[in-house]
């Protein structure tokens, strides 16, 4: 196993282990910036030599700038399929990077995973920063700082009209996508989720599941992000998204308050049953685990369960996934075996 992958397997990202503002509804805040190097074609049209140049430039920056002290670089070419799947599950890399068929793909990241850069994805660089809870402004500060540092060493593809030039013109301008991961069991249980989510979509935001683009909604988790990247400043994009998210937080809060008054026993029952299944099941799928974990998390959020923290649930949410699970056990496993091992692992951690 790659030594850095091993370290990542055993370490916990900052967004997972610490609570942030409004952690009882918002899991994490994330921003990504799409950037390209001037005069090098975008990755899918670049030659292997050009892609090599891109990754070499990153290695040079890493070596020569004290701001990048403590960052590690992993080259995907050397990894096994399970290790790549694990990086996707850990939310360090995207499906696009995992599937891209060209060489010299990479990921640069710091040890607490608050800042990372995907290399040779759809764009040469995809900077990404993530923090726990609701704090997009803080995330913007971090990512903006590193963006400035890189820009000192590299000439970005940019013009005054279209801003930062990206492979897909829909990302041009700021190249910024801000997203917030929300846990909305209250709206789900009280059947108000469709209405609430449709409002968000009408406001021009994209709604995705836990794994991102093209995935289903699991574990009552919703990832909401901006689509407009051109014509607004970074601060405006973030402010507008925050306003919409705040409305959604209020709706979830109200739904929870109502539930605790009208259906206290029913909620407690659902939470404790979920905990019961998680700590007793012998076979469990990823989807079932994520849904049950959501209800245990709901129990913590509502003060029904006190002895478990969000950090434990966050960690479980990641390690129940197939790639992570196989990495922990250090072997490839068939689905049936995974479902058994998953059940054992959850029980072990929760007990």
């Amino acid at each position, binding site marked *: 196993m790659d030594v850095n992958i091993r370290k990542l397997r055993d370490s916990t990202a900052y967004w997972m282990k610490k609570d942030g503002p409004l952690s009882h509804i918002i899991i994490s805040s994330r921003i990504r910036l799409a950037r*390209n190097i*001037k*005069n*090098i*074609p*975008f990755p*899918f*049209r670049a030659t292997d030599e050009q892609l090599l140049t891109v990754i070499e430039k990153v290695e040079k920056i890493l070596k020569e700038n004290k701001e990048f002290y403590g960052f590690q670089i992993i080259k995907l070419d050397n990894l096994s399929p399970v290790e790549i799947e694990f990086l996707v599950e850990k939310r360090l890399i995207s499906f696009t990077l995992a599937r891209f068929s060209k060489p010299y793909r990479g990921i640069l990241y710091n040890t607490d995973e608050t800042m990372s850069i995907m290399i040779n994805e*759809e764009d040469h660089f995809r900077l990404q920063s993530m923090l726990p809870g609701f704090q997009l402004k803080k995330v913007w500060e971090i990512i*903006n700082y590193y*963006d*400035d540092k890189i*820009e*000192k060493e590299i*000439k*970005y*593809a*940019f*013009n*005054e*009209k*279209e*801003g*930062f*030039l990206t*492979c*897909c*013109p*829909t990302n*041009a*301008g*700021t190249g*910024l996508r801000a997203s917030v991961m929300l846990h909305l069991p209250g709206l*789900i*249980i009280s*059947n108000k989720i*469709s*209405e609430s*989510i*449709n409002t968000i*979509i009408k406001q021009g935001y*994209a*709604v995705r*599941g836990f794994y991102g*683009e093209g995935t*289903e*909604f*699991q574990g009552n988790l919703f990832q909401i992000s901006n*689509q*407009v990247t*051109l*014509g*607004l*400043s*970074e601060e405006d*994009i973030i402010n507008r998204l925050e306003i919409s998210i705040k409305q959604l937080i209020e709706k979830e809060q109200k739904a929870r308050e109502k539930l605790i008054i009208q259906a206290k026993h029913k909620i407690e029952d659902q939470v404790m049953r979920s905990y019961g299944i998680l700590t007793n099941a012998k076979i469990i*799928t990823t*989807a*079932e685990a994520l*849904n049950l974990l959501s209800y245990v998390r709901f129990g913590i959020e509502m003060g029904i369960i006190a002895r478990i923290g969000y950090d434990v649930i966050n960690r479980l949410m990641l390690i129940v996934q197939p790639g992570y699970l196989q990495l922990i056990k250090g072997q490839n496993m068939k689905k049936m075996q995974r479902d058994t091992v998953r059940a054992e692992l959850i029980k072990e951690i929760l007990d």
Partner: protein
Amino acid sequence: MLCQMCKKNKATVKIVKVAGLSKTELNVCNECANYLLGNTITTISFTQNSLNEILFNLLNTFSKYSTEDSNVTLESEVKCSNCGMTYAEFVKSGKLGCSNCYSVFRKYIKPLLNRLHGNYQHSGKIPDSLQLRLDIIKKIKKIKDELKEAVSREEYEKAAKLRDTIIDEEKKAGIRDNE
């Protein structure tokens, strides 16, 4: 698509039911979705078009027009001299090949981005290096105005000084090559 339950309203919600190893999908309207979801634990997803899909649809409509109109068929042959990307490839993938493609295909990108973002003028962050250059260009413009005024007032000594300043600044901004 019509709701598969009531067959009356437009289907807006896709319900994916995961039971053990089997998975079933149902496209329904909001009302039926609420009825169906009840207390069961399910995963749901909403019908929404991502920007890429919208872009893709727009591009395809554009290309249809151009093939119907014989005068514009040549457009599919527009090609980026830097990376070799053609208009046809752009329409097919929705992706550009390099930064130069933006100038080559601007004519087609502009209406698309206008529709998607409601705007076609970047107003976010500007790279520091470029910001410096933009500032100098602004400064030069100002000195040029002063120069004009000096000439009109026949203050030739002042005009000569201003001219030298402009040359210096232009060199700094990389606009004027060092002869």
